């Protein structure tokens, strides 16, 4: 493994058009999630189209876009579902930032990156929500959440390929230089 400094860091950034596209994509995903997918219970789990879309955006557009996208998408979810404001935002912001960093560094150009990211983030997202709900003293059914983890991972992995393909088609793949990078792992 060889670490290497990234080039043209100043050129990094998401263009306005890309930003709008990503925002629209996340908006549609959030609305679809709260209106349609939240009602789909398969083996006790709910497919999370928003989380998968966010992972795709993060991998393609980096940590800042991921954190911002996670924050506002979470805000949309909390607003639409009349839940505790900021709760989903908090977890999705951290998830978006972390996946963005993974995309900027280790995960880029790897075919399995979206799948790995979705699997890991599904677990962390569920556990993160569980912890936040628990800390707030709200209902936090750990047993039910843990039991639904495996089916949730499978469902989200099924969604990953099409959603990642759509997202990549909409957001033209950023050149490596457009991503904030400090380290690239090879192999």
């Amino acid at each position, binding site marked *: 493994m060889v670490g290497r400094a990234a080039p043209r860091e100043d050129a990094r950034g998401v263009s306005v058009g890309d930003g709008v596209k990503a925002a629209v994509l996340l908006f549609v995903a959030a*609305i*679809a999630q709260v209106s349609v997918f939240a009602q789909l219970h398969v083996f006790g789990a709910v497919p999370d189209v928003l989380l998968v879309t966010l992972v795709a955006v993060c991998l393609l557009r980096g940590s800042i876009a991921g954190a911002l996208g996670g924050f506002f998408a979470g805000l949309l979810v909390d607003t639409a579902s*009349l839940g505790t*404001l*900021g709760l989903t*935002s908090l977890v999705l*912001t951290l998830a978006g930032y972390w996946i963005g960093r993974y995309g900027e560094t280790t995960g880029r150009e790897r075919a399995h990156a979206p799948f790995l990211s979705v699997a890991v983030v599904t677990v962390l997202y569920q556990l993160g929500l569980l912890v*936040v709900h628990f800390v707030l003293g709200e209902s936090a059914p750990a047993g039910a959440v843990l039991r639904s983890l495996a089916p949730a991972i499978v469902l989200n992995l099924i969604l990953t390929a099409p959603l990642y393909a759509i997202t990549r088609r909409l957001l033209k793949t950023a050149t490596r*230089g457009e991503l904030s990078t400090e380290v690239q792992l090879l192999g």
Partner: protein
Amino acid sequence: MLASSVERSKPTPYPSKARSALVRRTILVVLVLAALALVTVSFRSPTAGALHDLQGAGASALRPFQIAATRVAAPFRDAYDYLDSLARAKAQNAELKRVNAELRRDVLISAARAAKYPELLRLLHFEQGPSFPHGYRVVNASVITFPAGPFAHRLTIDAGSSSGIRVDSPVVSGDGLVGLVTDVSPETATVMLLTDPQSAVAARDLRHGVRGVIQVGPGGTLVLNDVPKQQVVQAGDVIVTDGTRNPRYPDLYPYGIPIGRVAAVGATDTATFLQVQVQPFVSFGSLDAVGVLVPKHRR
């Protein structure tokens, strides 16, 4: 493998990289703090306040989009539900068949119980009615074996000596006299029906006070024997047990248990007694529940 194929770029100066990292982390911290602030305010005043109003307004603004999404998804959801229901149909079918079998069984059991109800009700009415003999209590029992054929005139009931039943205890149903206990074991007893050739019951015509003995006649019908030709017995008269005529010779049956109704009266010039045919009140072929009369005080 080293990064030989990776496009090499100009080395980036450190300050720029550091600035980028700073910006990135600052944005993260600001967003996290904003989220925490939202959570705090929202959690402390979940049903009131400016933030709550803002959330309500936001939810109202998002409502059309949600409705649109629901409508767009409706056909897909219907299709999913249809396929899902198909997949579950097999399991449901097996389950419904099982439930159906259970319900059929329950219906049969209920029907069988309901069929016994009128007989039990008549027995209860008899036991609580004025014609129930004094000095007796009743032991209710179910018939467990029935007369096996035209030549058998005995049945078995599911109560015996442990319930106080003794040999020679009279047995009744809701319609009238059934017979006499001829054998007991602790939990069962054998009842000799009135139609048994060995059965003989002292009886009387309620209307005319004529006395006789109920026995089985030719063809298995009941007849009132030993009625002199001078006595008057008419068709339709009710025959009941006569009870004890002489205290020195107490009868096995208490007075007044209905036996049957006179069906026909005949007399021949040569015979000494009337030929009185009696139609029993009890249908001996379809007895389910009977009561055994047990004296309250042992004689």
